[in-house]
């Protein structure tokens, strides 16, 4: 009994320490953002917050293009999420439920594309976007991000698990594939749709590398790319930089807090698929 108590204490303290290490960068970003620029670089600025100054936040909102970047991030992320979920769901439905020549091959291609790292495609995708005249446009940000095989694979697994009789009952009731997908399969799998939508949104929101390559004008930048401009335009203004970063991360953090359970579920499902 005593050994178990001790074990609990050790584990508890260990977890707290680990959590503190994880949370420290965020904490540091926060206390930096509420200091004046002078205080940030002055000697003796420790980990204890010694002032509460929102000037860097006001500067971030009014002196940078933060609101434009917000709009770009929201617009591109919402479009990516919608298209990825709807197209992934329809593709998975076709592969799971319809019988047509080349069905297995198609699924094989989906699986194979899952194995190609996105970085390997960057150069070709950039050339393609350039040829299509989509550099510095939302379409340029969005198009390469629409291929998310894991969504198809997860949906397919869930659709496969719906009993065959359910499909047959709908067919006998006079329903076709549209009825089946949108009135039966989708409502039956709302949980997974929500989970996939959230992780797709978060991943699109946090995307840095591709938008950084394809966007060069400040007006088309998303938040993660825009942060680099804060640095460039104003020298090294740490407080302002941190407030932009925190404001940029806020929607995702709020989404995560609200949908915590769903996000965990989605990560577990998709990592299960990844094996």
């Amino acid at each position, binding site marked *: 009994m005593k050994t178990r108590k001790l074990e609990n204490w050790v584990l508890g303290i260990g977890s707290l320490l680990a959590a503190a290490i994880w949370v420290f960068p965020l904490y540091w970003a926060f206390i930096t953002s509420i200091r004046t620029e002078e205080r940030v670089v002055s000697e003796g600025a420790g980990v204890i917050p010694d002032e509460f100054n929102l000037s860097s936040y006001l500067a971030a909102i009014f002196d940078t293009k933060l609101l434009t970047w917000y709009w770009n991030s929201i617009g591109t992320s919402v479009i990516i999420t919608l298209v990825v979920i709807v197209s992934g769901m329809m593709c998975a439905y076709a592969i799971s439920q319809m019988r047509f020549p080349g069905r297995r091959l198609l699924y094989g291609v989906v699986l194979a594309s899952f194995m190609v790292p996105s970085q390997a495609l960057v150069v070709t995708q950039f050339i393609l976007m350039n040829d299509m005249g989509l550099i510095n446009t939302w379409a340029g940000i969005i198009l390469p991000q629409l291929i998310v095989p894991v969504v198809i694979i997860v949906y397919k697994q869930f659709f496969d698990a719906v*009993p065959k*009789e*359910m499909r*047959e*009952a*709908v*067919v*006998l*009731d*006079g*329903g076709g594939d549209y*009825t089946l997908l949108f009135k*039966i399969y989708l*409502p*039956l799998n709302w949980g997974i749709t929500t989970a996939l939508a959230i992780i797709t949104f978060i991943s699109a929101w946090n995307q840095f590398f591709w938008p950084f390559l394809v966007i060069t004008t400040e007006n088309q930048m998303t938040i993660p790319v825009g942060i680099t401009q804060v640095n460039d335009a104003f020298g090294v203004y740490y407080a302002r930089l941190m407030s932009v970063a925190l404001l940029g991360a806020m929607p995702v953090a709020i989404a995560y807090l609200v949908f915590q359970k769903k996000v965990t579920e989605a990560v577990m499902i998709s990592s299960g698929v990844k094996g």
Partner: protein
Amino acid sequence: MMGVHLRNIRKVFGPVGVIHDVSMDIPAGEFAVFVGPSGCGKSTLLRMIAGLEDTSGGTISIEGTDVTWQEPAKRGVAMVFQSYALYPHLSVFENMAFSMRLKRAPKQDVHDKVMEAARILQLEEQLEKKPSQLSGGQRQRVAIGRAIVRQPKVFLFDEPLSNLDAELRVQMRLELARLHKQIGATMIYVTHDQVEAMTLADRIFVLKQGVVQQAGKPLDLYDDPDNRCVAGFIGSPAMNFLPATVLGREGDCLRVAIEGTEASLMARVSGDLPAGSRMTLGLRPEHLTTADAGVPVTVEMAEDLGGVSYLHTHMPDGREIVVEWRGSRHAGGGEAIKLTCAPEKVLVFDEQDQRIR
């Protein structure tokens, strides 16, 4: 021609044939039951009538219309599945209304028809519930209700009671029989449970390996089976089969020697079988009685069910014979008795398992 008519129906899965040249006529309003062991093709045949399986050959007509290549929804059939196949995210009302909603039927019509079905099935109190909140019996009633709302020409039931416990099964069986009487529609019912077949059917079709072995009224099949398969499948406990050899004719009966014993039995058969012919005798447990002379057996175990007991006995060579015993309670195992059967009750099957009458 009203009802359901199948002509030379065939079904192949790749190189494997599962339904072979099946023809049958089910008059309108009749309760037909397809029965047979697992893998006999009964469910496949039902699914072919529903249109859920393509037909490899032959024609299916419902109410005089050839529906062989028609879409399932246009055949005028409704199916009740073993697993109920209810839509879990919809309420009982919406489950039953689903087909009408797809047809964009007027709201009042939908409401009236669902309420009528709910009244017939006593589901009025459950309409707002989700299927997960219902018991097995209630779920099956919802599935039947969903079929009733469609007002089909033919109801198809694919082992609908298999998922229910024994007591509920008996209750639902009676409800189905009542429902058939009430709405008078043509019903085709698939089961492997011969008790369900006997109690529900106007006409039973016994299938084996994709071939109809015999079709007829339940008691006709029971009393006068065409072959060993039907004789063995209809009746519970199953018929006893004993290999035997013809000794000779005595009047309108044959005297046959039971293999593995010194005993012989008389069987009333008009067909001519020369002495020495090998055959199989079919003896129903309820037709066996004890006698001074007969097939010697030892009682191994008695199943006492109260009004009736089933004696599980074995012959000297180990073959089992089940005997139905009424009246005085049986004492138990180990007892040696001799069994006989009235000549007119003894069924005779030739070496190809066909009945000799």
